[in-house]
């Protein structure tokens, strides 16, 4: 039986579907047509496959392709398996608890800022070498080693793994709540299994379905990444996503066609990779069965425990030191090799940066908060519809939603957004704040969904049923009982949505028509110059915004529920 108030909830998934359908269609049409040599404004109207021929014969395209595949697949595979191993050996121990505490600040570090810091850490003229030069190494000038920007993309792969690991751990922490871990471990231990073996054989296979979407997002991100790839990836030729961006901005407008073909090709690679993972999932269930039921109590993983600990510590340290480097650069006046610390310091750049970034920061905050609030409304609306229609066995619109909700994460942003830009300009809607905010929503919403859905769907319905039985209306119960109980995950999903909005560069540029500068557009602009000092200031300011939101997500429940111990967890 439907309870009054529930029947209208279908508008949420329907609205989201409408929004996403229109934009994705516009994006795809705006990409497919140019890739078929159809772009009337630059005089190409004869539909043909010539663009594709040009694309495949472009000098260095194979190398681009291989470096993209290598870095994308290795990074995704590496980080996912490492995350599983890490959970298996360290769940519940001190390192894990430490991770829980520092996760939010680590997550809030923007990719580009991390890449700058990380690059300066490991470069031949970087901090690690400076620490031991010239005293130990005798280097007065940096050695000519190929550590950064290596043609194979190894440094890029490592950076991607370091940056994606905390994201996966965060999603896992959200999903762990739905598995009865304590009980499983207890039973497993009673049967003589070691902790690692229980995780590998029982818990991870049950955890995986909850992480599937996040893993797909990691794969898509690793294959399409631009900002880290520009800073740490190879340059001649660069990875596919960087090449596409270069083509798109090439003064010779004919390259726009190539960019469209490249973007479609990259999209195809992403889809193919995800399909592969899907197939592997199925076969893994079959092939790993003997391993799961072989009855072996101890695990090979125990041997690698120190290695896994060490790698986990490395990830934390690299991330932390990358931020420290930014702080030092922001206070630098002059700093040359092989000095371990700057020769002269200044507060000049902070003074300048704080003044100059005030307006962009305000724009960023307003847009981010609006997009995350709207995202929250839609996410909760859709999830509530999902819960209700499952219970009432009515038509579930949210189920269809997931088929394209995640598309914006899978399609390379640059060309996808170019189609949307054209559509907005035709409708005379470009350059408005509202369209800018909605374009952010396209990317904010999927992440908020990923972050919230698992916990939300796992909410114990008996609590709300009880309240309704006590005679309260559906909406009242939702706002007085359910949402307050879910406050912490909701705030977290809000903080994630906000930080995704803060990070958007391409949508802000294309949809905002240059009318809106956010802290991220400022960072990217400054990064196109050479001054690391002012860039560090901007990057740190950028980093502060999501950090403040995460801090709020942690502190607010503690303040509101200071007298309800059970709700602070």
């Amino acid at each position, binding site marked *: 039986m439907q309870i009054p108030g529930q029947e209208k909830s279908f508008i949420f998934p329907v609205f989201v579907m409408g929004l996403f359908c229109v934009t994705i269609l516009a994006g795809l049409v705006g990409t497919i047509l140019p890739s078929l040599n159809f772009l009337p404004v630059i005089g190409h109207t004869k539909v043909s496959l010539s663009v594709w021929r040009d694309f495949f014969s472009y000098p260095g395209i194979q190398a681009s392709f291989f470096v993209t595949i290598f870095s994308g697949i290795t990074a995704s595979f590496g980080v996912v398996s490492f995350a599983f191993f890490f959970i298996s050996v360290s769940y519940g121990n001190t390192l894990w608890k430490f991770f829980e505490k520092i996760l939010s600040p680590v997550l809030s570090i923007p990719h580009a800022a991390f890449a700058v810091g990380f690059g300066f850490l490991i470069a031949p003229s970087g901090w690690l070498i400076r620490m031991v030069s010239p005293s130990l190494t005798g280097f007065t000038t*940096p050695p000519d080693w190929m550590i950064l920007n290596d043609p194979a993309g190894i440094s890029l792969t490592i950076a991607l793994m370091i940056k994606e690991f905390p994201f996966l751990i965060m999603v896992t922490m959200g999903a762990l709540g739905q598995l009865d871990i304590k009980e499983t471990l207890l039973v497993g231990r009673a049967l003589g299994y070691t902790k690692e073996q229980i995780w590998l054989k029982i818990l991870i296979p049950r955890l995986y379905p909850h992480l599937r979407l996040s893993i797909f997002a990691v794969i898509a991100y690793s294959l399409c990444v631009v900002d880290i790839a520009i800073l740490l990836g190879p340059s001649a030729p660069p990875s596919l996503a960087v090449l596409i961006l270069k083509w798109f901005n090439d003064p010779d407008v004919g390259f726009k066609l190539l960019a469209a073909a490249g973007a479609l090709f990259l999209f195809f690679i992403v889809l193919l990779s995800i399909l592969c993972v899907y197939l592997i999932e199925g076969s893994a269930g079959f092939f790993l069965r003997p391993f799961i039921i072989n009855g072996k109590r101890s695990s090979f993983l125990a041997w690698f425990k120190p290695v896994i600990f060490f790698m986990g510590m490395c990830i934390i340290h690299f991330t932390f030191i990358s931020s420290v480097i930014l702080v030092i650069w922001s206070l630098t006046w002059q700093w040359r090799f092989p000095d371990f610390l700057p020769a002269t310091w200044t507060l000049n750049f902070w003074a300048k940066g704080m003044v100059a970034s005030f307006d962009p920061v305000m724009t960023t905050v307003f847009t981010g908060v609006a997009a995350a609030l709207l995202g929250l409304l839609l996410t909760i609306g859709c999830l509530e519809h999902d819960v209700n229609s499952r219970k009432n066995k009515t038509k579930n619109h949210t189920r269809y939603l997931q088929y394209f909700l995640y598309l914006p994460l899978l399609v390379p942003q640059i060309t996808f957004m170019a189609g949307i830009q054209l559509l907005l300009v035709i409708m005379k809607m470009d350059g408005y704040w509202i369209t800018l905010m909605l374009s952010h929503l396209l990317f904010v919403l999927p992440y908020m969904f990923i972050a919230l859905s698992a916990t939300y769907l796992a909410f114990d319905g008996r609590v709300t049923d009880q309240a309704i039985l006590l005679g309260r209306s559906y909406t009242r119960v939702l706002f007085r009982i359910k949402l307050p109980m879910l406050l912490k995950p909701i705030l977290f999903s809000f903080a994630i949505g906000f930080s995704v909005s803060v990070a958007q560069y391409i949508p802000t540029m294309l949809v905002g028509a240059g009318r809106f500068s956010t802290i991220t557009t400022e960072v990217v602009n400054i990064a196109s*110059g*050479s001054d690391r000092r002012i860039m560090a200031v901007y990057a740190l300011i950028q980093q502060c915004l999501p950090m403040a939101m995460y801090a709020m997500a942690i502190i607010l429940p503690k303040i509101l529920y200071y007298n309800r111990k059970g709700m602070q967890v």
Partner: protein
Amino acid sequence: MKHFFLILLGVVVLTVFSQAFAKDWSEIEQEAKGQTIYFNAWGGSQPINEYIQWACQVVQETYKVRVIHVKATDIGDVVSRILVEKAADKQTNGSVDLLWINGENFKAMKENMLLYGPFSQNLPHYKLVSTLKKTMLYDFTIPVDNMESPWGMAQLVFSYDTKQVSKHPTSMPELLAFARQNPGKFTYPAIPSFHGTTFIKQVLLELIQDPEILNKPVIQADFEKNTRPLWDFLNELHPFLWRKGKVFPTSGSQMLSLLNDNEIFISFSFNPNSVSNAIENGELPNTIRTYIHTMGTISNAHFLSIPFNSSAKSGAMVFANFLLSPMAQARKADPRIWGDPSVLDIKKLAGPDKALFKAVPKGIATLTPEELGQGLPEPHVSWVQFLEKEWLKKYSR
């Protein structure tokens, strides 16, 4: 008597015209009042951003034109946006009112009819521009046709660390010899970045047998033969480059960081004052100096243009005109501020304006105008695409 009438007629016509012209401009200034213009310009340099900020303030106070600096990472995406607006038939209220541009981007805009103009001849300060210079009339060999207003000059200058290099090279063969002696201490940005392309153009200009050919459109049949010395040179140079020529910096700005990190000893930039400016603001140590090759180096100019669909063209012209004023140009030329060479002809200036330029100090690492010389002209623009394609084929694998 007949002559007298002719002269009289001439004088009358001239007065009427000049008055009409003067009235035109004051009308434009009047119209510009209260307009908001979006000035799209590269925003990667703090000193340049601060200079633009200053100009915006002055124009707001003097002409009541509100200028907003829209910072771009790559002016290519601004050109893309204007192109999209044209595709969507947006004839008015374009998102861009004025943009900083030259070379290939200008070519793209001109070919795709994205420009408003001709307009620069109407700017009162345009008559002070040293129009005798070819670079003012041809932007990368494309006729400017008053479709853009000159803003500044550029010339390729090399920079080196005097602490590490005692005697700098003065030609490409000497640069190769330097690289052999100091493996890994020189590099150039990957093609098709602007600085990388400029470097290989410079190599070609220095090594080609018959430089005259470069003034004409490239002919496929001769391309191979004429550019042979360039590829031979690069083949020899690459094993001695930074990272053995397997990795290239992505941009000219990255070259500056590499120089500061001691990764390379010789770098280059496209502004004769940029090193002085970087020393001034602490980005480089004061041991860096600049030099050019004895044959001279490529020079060109950069410009401001107005898109066809701007709805604040008067405001854009007022701002462009202000940026051409002796006051703005002299401030821009100051290495402590930005150090971008002026486009004005000093001889055409009135006394007090001349004094403005006299007061501009010479940067610590800046060459004198005599040392910089006339500068070499850019090769015909059609060469760029051929050179870039060939480079990618040979070295980007």
